[in-house]
């Protein structure tokens, strides 16, 4: 069973705090939010953005929990720590605030099997019967096929982390929870599962629990952020997901535009680069003035690169307009040419902070 190693707090066990913990002021645009759900098309940078957001939120001694539910150990890889068990671990110091005080990021890898056993133990005191279920293969069955059970368990555990209750003694209380969520294609099904549970379990304790989870997910304490690239398919999926989320009464948060290309040329030069109108003699002269020994080809290569870049930027601009049309607060993160390591995560966290997301 989960060991919850990191220290406990002195708050009363069942205080449910609706207001933001450390007062307002420098909380960023999402001060009242306790659960940040990060989704997006596969591969756009959900895990990266979730990690950077957790770091950015963890200032002023705040404790932030970063959860993953997709069984991929992405957090462990990003933070360069051993694979995470089903237990909360402190994995990093947050990004210090303007006053120099940092907080802490904890991490939790939630898998459905452990969540089921945890759940049975916590809510039904089903120690023995729980093991019997496992022996008969019910755990496997329930978590793989019984409709929605898996998502009920995963969201249930996230809920438990946000609203710690007296059953889970000694557990850390978090100021915010960031969830590295399933991709856009499955996000509504995942979050809305508790609303649909009633169809299957028309009565009983499960229904009660599901109602509480839905209440949190539909409250202003939760925001679903969407990560996208400035490419057609991710933006399309973002637009579709926003509609679906809204239709399901879930709160759409920000759009985080990730992996934005460098902005080295002004609009005029971009247009010239696309149409072949850049002055190659001038560039050649500049290169010589800069002390670069070069032949014809370097100039041609630079022009060629500028052309490709300008074409890509034109696609980006088109998509940026579509993103703006979605009417959600938007933040942009640069594509880091050297890839994402721990330093890179802090760099992105600082950007999110600057832009006001945290």
């Amino acid at each position, binding site marked *: 069973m989960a060991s919850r190693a990191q220290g406990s707090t002195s708050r009363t066990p069942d205080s449910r705090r609706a207001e933001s913990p450390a007062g307002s002021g420098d909380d960023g645009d999402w001060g009242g939010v306790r659960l940040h759900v990060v989704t997006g*098309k*596969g*591969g*756009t940078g959900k895990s990266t953005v979730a990690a950077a957001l957790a770091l950015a939120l963890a200032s002023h001694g705040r404790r932030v929990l970063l959860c993953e539910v*997709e069984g991929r150990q992405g957090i462990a890889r990003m933070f360069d720590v051993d694979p995470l068990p089903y237990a909360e671990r402190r994995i990093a110091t947050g990004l210090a605030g303007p006053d120099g005080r940092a907080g802490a990021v904890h991490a939790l890898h939630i898998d459905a099997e452990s969540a089921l056993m945890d759940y*049975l133990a916590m809510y*039904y005191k*089903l120690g*023995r*019967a729980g093991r*019997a*279920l496992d022996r*008969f*293969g*019910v755990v*496997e*069955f329930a978590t*793989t*096929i*019984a*409709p929605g059970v898996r998502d009920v368990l995963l969201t249930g555990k996230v809920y438990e982390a946000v609203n710690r209750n007296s059953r889970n003694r000694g557990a850390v209380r978090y100021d915010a929870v960031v969830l590295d969520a399933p991709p856009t294609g499955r996000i509504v*099904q995942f979050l809305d599962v508790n609303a649909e549970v009633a169809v*299957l379990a*028309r*009565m*009983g*304790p*499960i229904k009660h629990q599901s109602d509480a989870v839905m209440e949190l997910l539909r409250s202003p304490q939760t925001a679903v952020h969407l990560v996208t690239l400035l490419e*057609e398919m991710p933006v399309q999926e973002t637009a579709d997901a926003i509609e679906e989320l809204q239709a399901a009464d879930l709160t759409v948060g920000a759009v985080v535009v990730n992996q934005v290309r*460098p902005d*080295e*040329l002004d609009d005029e030069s971009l247009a*010239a*680069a696309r149409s072949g109108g*850049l002055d190659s003699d*001038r*560039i050649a002269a*500049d*290169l010589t*003035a*800069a*002390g*670069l020994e*070069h*032949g014809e*080809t*370097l100039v041609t*290569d*630079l022009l*060629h*690169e*500028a*052309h*490709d870049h300008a*074409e*890509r930027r034109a*696609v980006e601009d088109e998509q940026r307009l579509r993103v703006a049309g979605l009417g959600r607060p938007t933040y942009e993160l640069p594509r880091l*040419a*050297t*890839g994402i390591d721990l330093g890179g995560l802090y760099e992105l966290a600082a950007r999110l902070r600057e832009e006001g997301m945290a």
Partner: protein
Amino acid sequence: MSPATDRSRHRVGPLASTAREAPMLDVDALLDDPETRIIVCCGSGGVGKTTTSAALALRAAERGRHVVVLTIDPARRLAQSMGIEQLDNTPRPVPDLTWPKGTRKRPTKAPRMDAMMLDMKRTFDEVVESQANPEKAQQILENPFYVALSSSFAGTQEYMAMEKLGQIYRDAERDGTYDLIVVDTPPSRSALDFLDAPERLSSFLDGRFIKLLLAPARGPARMMTMGLQLFTSALTKILGAQVLQDLQTFVAAVDTLFGGFRQRAQQTYQLLQTGGTAFLVIAAPEPDALREAAYFVERLDEDQMPLAGLVVNRATATSPEDLDAEEALAAAARLERKKSRTVTPGLLRLHADRMRLAEREARLRERFTAAHPEVPTVVVAALPTDVHDLDGLRQVGRLLAGS
């Protein structure tokens, strides 16, 4: 590279290669070889599986093969350009194909290529309908456990891609419709999911729990042990009685239907092991994607499935003139100190950014090649814009062929 002269297919096996350079993947040789009947494009999410499948199919068609490409969730505009806007599980001809200039022997008929978009739920439903009488089928199709299995069970999409591949292959063998099938695979986290799906599904359906639920119907009170009572009461407590009833219906259906499923999956799996199949692993030049590609290559080897090679897609293109990142940045800084208003420092910084990306990608590729030196590889540069029309596909096709 001359595809026509080199018929021997370099697949896995020690090839003469220099220390860190992977052998070149000869895509045209693969496409031109009449023995190649199925090409499966695998790889982790978003790396370009759909684009590559479509580009390969188009290139093969324009080199004279009778091709069908089975795509999964193509981007809207790409689907439109291939004439497959509706999701109806039927191959349709791609409009407006012509023989490219310089085709050696131009037949009078235009090249033909069919494309289709997989509707996984429909495919699953069709299998159920083909195995049960209408009344029973209806009952199953409405069962919530079936609905979950057919729409969101991890692996169903992969399983259905295989099912459809099997169907098209059998039809093609019978009617001579196609001599090459190119298969896209679903956007899963891992390329391995495609191979694991049938096994996952069958072992699940053979699972202890399902056996247990079936047992009382067959064998008498033997199973009514303490444990079973404990467990049904726990289950009822948690889920409610209706759920158990739905479950019984589902399980009974599983028993009658899924034997057939298992057998079909096995057949398709065997088909994938034959020499007519070629797997292409697609990866982006990213650590995760290349790690997945490496797992997949190892797995193919274990399962004795024929690997044709690795495609590193959307790579950063660099030119031979190697002005490195540091030099470029230093030069940009020197120019900027002169305060003249020109684009050159911007161009130099863009170049530096590109060189950094390229260096990193080259390192990642080297790491892959060091571990799997025998895997033929082709690097496909990222086009400046998304690929959403036939010309874009042709361009990717040319890059795949290394020309």
